[in-house]
């Protein structure tokens, strides 16, 4: 930690966010390593510490003799103000070094509403925002993560972008930077070397061309040999990947503060709204034997009281039942519980949940996403009303009294009937719960309704987001019909979904908006209390950009999209087919169990789904 922060600590909320000395934090000797990496999470410590990707990279980089990684988080506003007042720059947690002392500063792009925090962190660190304004001095500013699949709105601020899984390419990057530094390469020479690696995108070598209407038309490369398309990196042998043997154990409460076992990567359910389901393909399961070893090591090194199994859809993991049962039996005597965040909506899931939550049967969450079968077919969420009835009844029978249902509004082809469907489902759940009612238990249902955000690399990437007025009127429609003492209705603000939609499909013209927004004071946009839509409106106005043109406009299928050079391996013909099937309400089966849906990932990335066979289970 930077010693200059010490006198400020008594003056801020949760000061232990800024101190270090957490168990398993790595304090390496700076004079003994060649490459220094700052892993910068564009949100506060309490959020960033829960991020598995950075835990993996932290262990991987620090596992090398020639490199070190330290952590950097956005200071909360109270601390920022004090730092600015005292002229103290943003520093890394472990050594307290300013970010300018590192060779690489890597940001993770988890979601669009964190973009302002990246600029704010660069500002606090005293690093020029735009890559072309920075001098020859390192660090290189890099970024990865899901939102990197359309990095264009932040492209001007980044020296390079890494697409896809980081475990292999991170080593290659470290090697290149190490050699490059030894040879005294210039920044551009270093970037040239880096760009030879698969999955690396150097934004400043490309120039967007805009048409007379101001819209994106093409990306023109500025240097010879610049790849026309960057393919994401994907790890083929998931079982042989290194996994952290230690997690840094925070003192303050953070999200996902527990042992995490990554049971699987990718999801092939093919929900047409879901970007994660598209960009993380193919499906790769980790063998139970390998998982159990990894979990055991982490339990031993952290002392955590909870183990969670993480993936996009844990119920799909072939051996989930035996795995969960084994873990429960193995750890229950030492007071360690097992949790499973993303369960499938079926009665098997209930059985499992019942074993896991022997204790607090407070709430169980399902995501039907849409109120009618018709609309669920459109979005390819293959859940029927009967499934739901089954699962809700078994949940009530098993002792749960509160069911939480997630829906979206503003989905393509949605009509009033679909909204009515949400209302009906809410009431049906209460109806199904009636027979389980007792003096002590009153069935309740929570309905959470998000506004749909069309995302790049999904079949819905061409469609307009519904206007904020319509979304608000839909919220009111539901609100009026969900007034019931046993129904809790909640919905995030439409302005946040709107901004997310603008940046999700944005291009580089938005860089000016981001800069203006940060100058006006926008940051922590995903924190409802900090979100200042009025300032955002001003920023768009000042930059002369119409956000509606990004969020509220349906693109022609033939229109140039700003992100097509950033490839997740998904075939655009597939997305187009899926878009057409969606409009016809025809579902597409999951290639894990059914026939190949020809999404293009396996042939283009030379990979395949890897499912654990039963014989591998002990």
């Amino acid at each position, binding site marked *: 930690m930077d010693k200059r922060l010490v006198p400020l*600590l*008594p*003056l801020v909320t949760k*000061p*232990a966010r800024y*101190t270090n*000395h*957490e*168990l398993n934090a790595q304090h390496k000797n700076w004079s003994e390593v060649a490459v220094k990496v700052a892993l910068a999470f564009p949100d506060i410590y309490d959020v960033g510490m829960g991020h598995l990707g950075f835990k993996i990279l932290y262990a991987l980089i620090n596992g090398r003799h020639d490199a070190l990684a330290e952590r950097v988080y956005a200071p909360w506003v109270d601390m920022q103000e004090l730092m600015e007042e005292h002229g103290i720059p943003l520093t890394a947690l472990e050594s307290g070094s300013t970010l300018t002392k590192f060779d690489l500063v890597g940001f993770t792009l988890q979601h669009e509403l964190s973009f302002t925090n990246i600029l704010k962190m660069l500002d606090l660190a005293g690093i020029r925002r735009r890559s072309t304004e920075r001098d020859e001095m390192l660090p290189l500013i890099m970024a990865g993560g899901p939102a990197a699949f359309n990095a264009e709105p932040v492209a001007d601020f980044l020296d390079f972008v890494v697409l896809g899984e980081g475990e292999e390419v991170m080593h290659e990057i470290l090697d290149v930077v190490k050699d490059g530094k030894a040879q005294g390469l210039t920044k551009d020479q270093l970037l040239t070397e880096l760009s030879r690696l698969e999955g690396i995108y150097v934004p400043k070598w490309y120039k967007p061309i805009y048409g007379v209407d101001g819209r994106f038309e093409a990306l023109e490369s500025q240097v010879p040999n610049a790849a026309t398309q960057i393919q994401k990196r994907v790890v083929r042998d998931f079982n042989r990947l290194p996994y952290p043997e230690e997690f840094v*154990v925070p*003192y*303050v*409460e953070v999200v996902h503060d527990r042992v995490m076992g990554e049971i699987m990567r990718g999801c092939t359910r093919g929900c047409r709204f879901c970007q994660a389901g598209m960009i993380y393909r193919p499906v790769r399961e980790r063998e139970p034997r390998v998982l159990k070893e990894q979990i055991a090591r982490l*339990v*031993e*090194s*952290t*002392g*955590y*009281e909870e183990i969670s199994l993480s993936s996009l859809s844990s119920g799909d993991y072939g051996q989930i039942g035996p795995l969960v049962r084994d873990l429960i039996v193995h750890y229950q005597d*030492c*007071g*360690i*519980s097992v949790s499973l965040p993303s369960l499938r909506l079926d009665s098997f899931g209930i059985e499992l949940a019942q074993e896991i939550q*022997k*204790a*607090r049967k407070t709430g169980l969450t399902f995501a039907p996403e849409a109120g009618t079968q018709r609309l669920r077919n459109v979005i390819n969420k293959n859940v029927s009303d009967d499934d739901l009835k089954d699962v809700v009844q078994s949940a009530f029978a098993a002792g749960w009294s509160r069911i939480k249902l997630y829906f979206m509004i503003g989905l393509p082809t949605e009509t009033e009937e679909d909204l009515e469907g949400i209302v009906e489902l809410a009431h049906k759940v209460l109806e199904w719960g009636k027979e389980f009612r007792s003096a002590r238990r009153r069935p309740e249902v929570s309905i959470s309704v998000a506004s749909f955000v069309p995302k790049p690399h999904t079949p819905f990437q061409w469609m307009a987001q519904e206007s904020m007025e319509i979304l608000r009127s839909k919220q009111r429609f539901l609100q009026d019909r969900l007034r019931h003492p046993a129904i809790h209705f909640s919905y995030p603000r439409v302005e946040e979904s709107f901004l997310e939609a603008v940046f999700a499909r944005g291009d580089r013209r938005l860089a000016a908006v981001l800069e203006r927004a940060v100058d006006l004071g926008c940051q922590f946009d995903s924190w409802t209390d900090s979100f200042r839509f009025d300032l955002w409106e001003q920023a768009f106005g000042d930059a002369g950009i119409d956000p509606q043109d990004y969020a509220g406009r349906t693109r022609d299928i033939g229109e140039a999209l700003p992100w097509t050079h950033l490839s997740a391996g998904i075939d655009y013909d597939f997305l187009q087919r899926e878009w057409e099937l969606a409009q016809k309400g025809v579902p597409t089966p999951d290639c894990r169990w059914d026939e190949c849906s020809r999404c293009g990932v396996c042939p283009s990335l030379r990979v395949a789904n890897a499912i654990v066979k039963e014989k591998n289970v002990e």
Partner: protein
Amino acid sequence: MSNVIRFQFRKGPEVQFLSHLDVVRTMERAVRRAGLPMAYSEGFTPRPIMSYSYALSVGLLSEAEYGDFALTEELDPEEFVKIYNQHLPKGFEVLRAQRLPDHAPTLQAQINAASWRVSLPKVSADAIKERWQWLQEVDSFVVRRETKKGSRDVDVRHFLFSVGAIVQSPTGVVFDCLAGLGNEANLRMEELGQLLCFAHLEATITRMGQFKKVGNLYVPPLEDRG
């Protein structure tokens, strides 16, 4: 003898800004790493059976925090200190431990006073001395205390029992004092600051001891050995 171990531990500058809950969580996780034979509570979510003395405010240091751990088997206190220290993060250190006799009173029942060491920058010893002299002749000192239920006036004059030698150092002033702790005559450090007229956020304050005050006798919750 019971299988409850009572121990005294230090909370150093590395973990100065942890809240009481952070400390409890850290202790629990260290117990698991150390593989101590802890007794767990009954019920759906078994928790190790442990209790602590009165919470230390965020930002304060301590040489004398106390904890009681219930174990399932007899463990030599020396052995406990050795094993547990190996698994505690930097900044925590168990200083000593003893097995408790059966039906020993809880920690909180055995504590109602604390000694504090206050180190103040940019303050002269004379200022503190004068203030303390003045305060000794005053019978009442009312402060406004903010609580969860609102604020109320509290007379804290006699919650500060005594102030020891006030020593001028090159960087400021150091002194020890004895004050009430717990549910009845509790003196908060910001109130100590008000009483002695110093800015408590600029001070380095260390809890040096916790005691049961019996008349003018201060008895620590662990027996002194030699």
